[in-house]
């Protein structure tokens, strides 16, 4: 049955490979962006929840 689909839909491989490429490129972009991030900013951001010292 699955052969039937693959034959009817010859471009299926393009979908499989292109989807992986899309993710890979996206992932690398995010990783590069993270690498270039400012350390001070990271510290500031990670302390945000602790800075609303309203409660005792």
């Amino acid at each position, binding site marked *: *049955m*699955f052969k*039937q*689909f*693959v034959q*009817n*839909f010859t*471009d*299926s*491989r393009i*979908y*499989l490979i*292109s*989807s*992986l490429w*899309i*993710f890979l490129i*996206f*992932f690398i972009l*995010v*990783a590069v*962006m*993270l690498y*270039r*991030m*400012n350390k001070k*900013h*990271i*510290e*500031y*951001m*990670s*302390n*945000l*929840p*602790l800075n*609303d010292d*309203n*409660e005792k």
Partner: protein
Amino acid sequence: MQLEKFNYDNKIVRDFGIATVVWGIIGMTVGLLIAFQLFKPEMNMGNQYTTFGRIRPLHTNAVIFAFVGNGIFMGVYYSMQRLLKARMFSDRLSKIHFWGWQLIIISAVITLPLGLTTSHEYAELEWPIDIAITLIWVVFGVNMFGTIVKRRERHMYVAIWFYIATFVTVAVLHIVNSFQLPVSAFKSYYLYAGVQDALVQWWYGHNAVAFFLTTPYLGMMYYFLPKMANRPVYSYKLSILHFWSLIFIYIWAGPHHLLYTSLPGWAQSLGVVFSIMLIAPSWGGMINGLLTLRGAWDKVRDDAILKFMVVGLTAYGMATFEGPMLALKQINAIAHYTDWIVAHVHVGALGWNGFLTFAILYWLVPRIYQTEIFSRKLMNFHFWIGTLGILFYAIPLYLAGFAQGLMLKEFTPEGMLKYPAFLQTTLEIIPMHIFRAIGGTMYLTGVIVMTYNLVKTVAKGKLVANEPAEAMSLAPVFVPQSGEKTWHRSLERKPMMFMVLSIIVILIGGMVEMMPTFMISSNVPTIASVKPYTPLELHGRDLYIREGCVNCHSQMIRPFRSETERYGEYSKAGEFVYDHPFLWGSKRTGPDLHREGGKYSNAWHFNHMLDPTTMSPGSIMPPYPWLIDQKLDTTTTESKINAMRTLGVPYEEGYEKLANNDLNAQAQSIADNLVKDNINIQSNREIIAIIAYLQRLGTDIKVK
């Protein structure tokens, strides 16, 4: 810039908190009731409104959208105000959101037992309620983005991104999975049919887990866990990486719910690959959470709240490891349709969602009531009985899943099925079902103890409805300082752009998967002998939907020898082209029904529906005597035929006027046939329609 004084709205947090607890108890009690019905069918109280097929959706909807839903809003309204240093945008919108959501839940509580359901899992509510959900969701969105706009904190903390992603994705999922053509006030047909409907539904179903049960809870984890442990999150960079990877990958994984079905093979493969990849971002979240506690593990020993968080995160880790494993075809072949999946879901639901909700309630209620928790002992008791409850729930169901999955595939040395009757395997796992119900009872006991503890806490404190706070106002124009121009930093300041980017990220996966299945007709090869349902069969099908038969019976025979031997020829995509909606099902508590047509006599079906144990001794299927008493409503035939034609089912023009004649003739012939077996029944009863439908199932391509 000047120092501004303002108040946090704690009242709305309290209200959502109460709703969380109340709906939690109701949803879990219904869950327990159906768990008992799985070994003692009489627990349906002999009543159609409390029978498994109708109230299993009530249980799932109540725990997902009422318990967890209100829990999300409680956590979001509390944390968002504080992270953005602003009161919620509008008190009125908060109120509309709260009461609107409760009304939606109440309408579910009324309509689902009445059998008013679309049959799409976790999207069962009919079209008027779907519209209400959309409106209330928009109210939530406006309130959320309004708050973001008037914030006093320039940067959006990672929790806020998770909330934004939740908002936009749930909106997209809900709308796409709600394209229905109304037939009457509370009945509609999905625009999609068969394979396409299945793909849309499981794209939705899988991502409802992702974006309703996961992302908002991760957001809450990133706010509340640092608060509880009094230390910042382990790695902020990891939180960014796993956020973007998680929302990107999750959306692709839906087809793993349809492995070995008639869904095109390439879509199945795509689902498998992305499911495996999903381990990484999921574990990124879990590891980030657990490592936040580094150096604070001594606290975990004394603090029940942190214990709940640790077990919750561990359950998340286990469920998100198990999910990708279940997406492997070899494992899925055994696990799919069995109790294994039920166990898997409940590790996530009871452990991750349940325990995080309890931890947040225990942490938050004393704070907004300015007091201490009433009893730490009871809190500890809740933790232990809850944890044991999860174990007693999950382990027996894992055993039941393995046992049944393997038994169904077992052959004798002669090459015959070892357990040819499905019921033989069911009877083997009934003790496991009993243990599961005990586990569920323990878990619910814990929740009731928690309720008592919280009520006592509330009684000794006083609600700070408006908690005073102060923060500097934001300068109207932001001037970037030198060295600040990193991409994500500016994104953190632009909520709208952030939202658009999140939408793009989640749409990519959906589009790549769905477009080919919808645009390329050869993807669903048509079969010439497949004809539309007759009017009587169509009514029978709607009764099948009303009674929730799909909750226990699949209509999808996978291409395995064990299945073709047991049920007949495997299911083909082209057989479902007129199925609005598809009824493939996701769990086999009973056997598959796709080739049920012609297998038994009409009299067998009649007696079986009246009392299943007469035909199948030991069966745990409940009796359906009301189908024999109730008259079939044929006034809707015309609108149903018209609706189906609009959706592309080739009924001839004008057939709607003649349909009831055909219906009566077919019903009469079934009634006449029953007389031969000494069953005298009027032809206008519902049972006749459901027999007609069952006898039609899978016969289009059956060799006669």
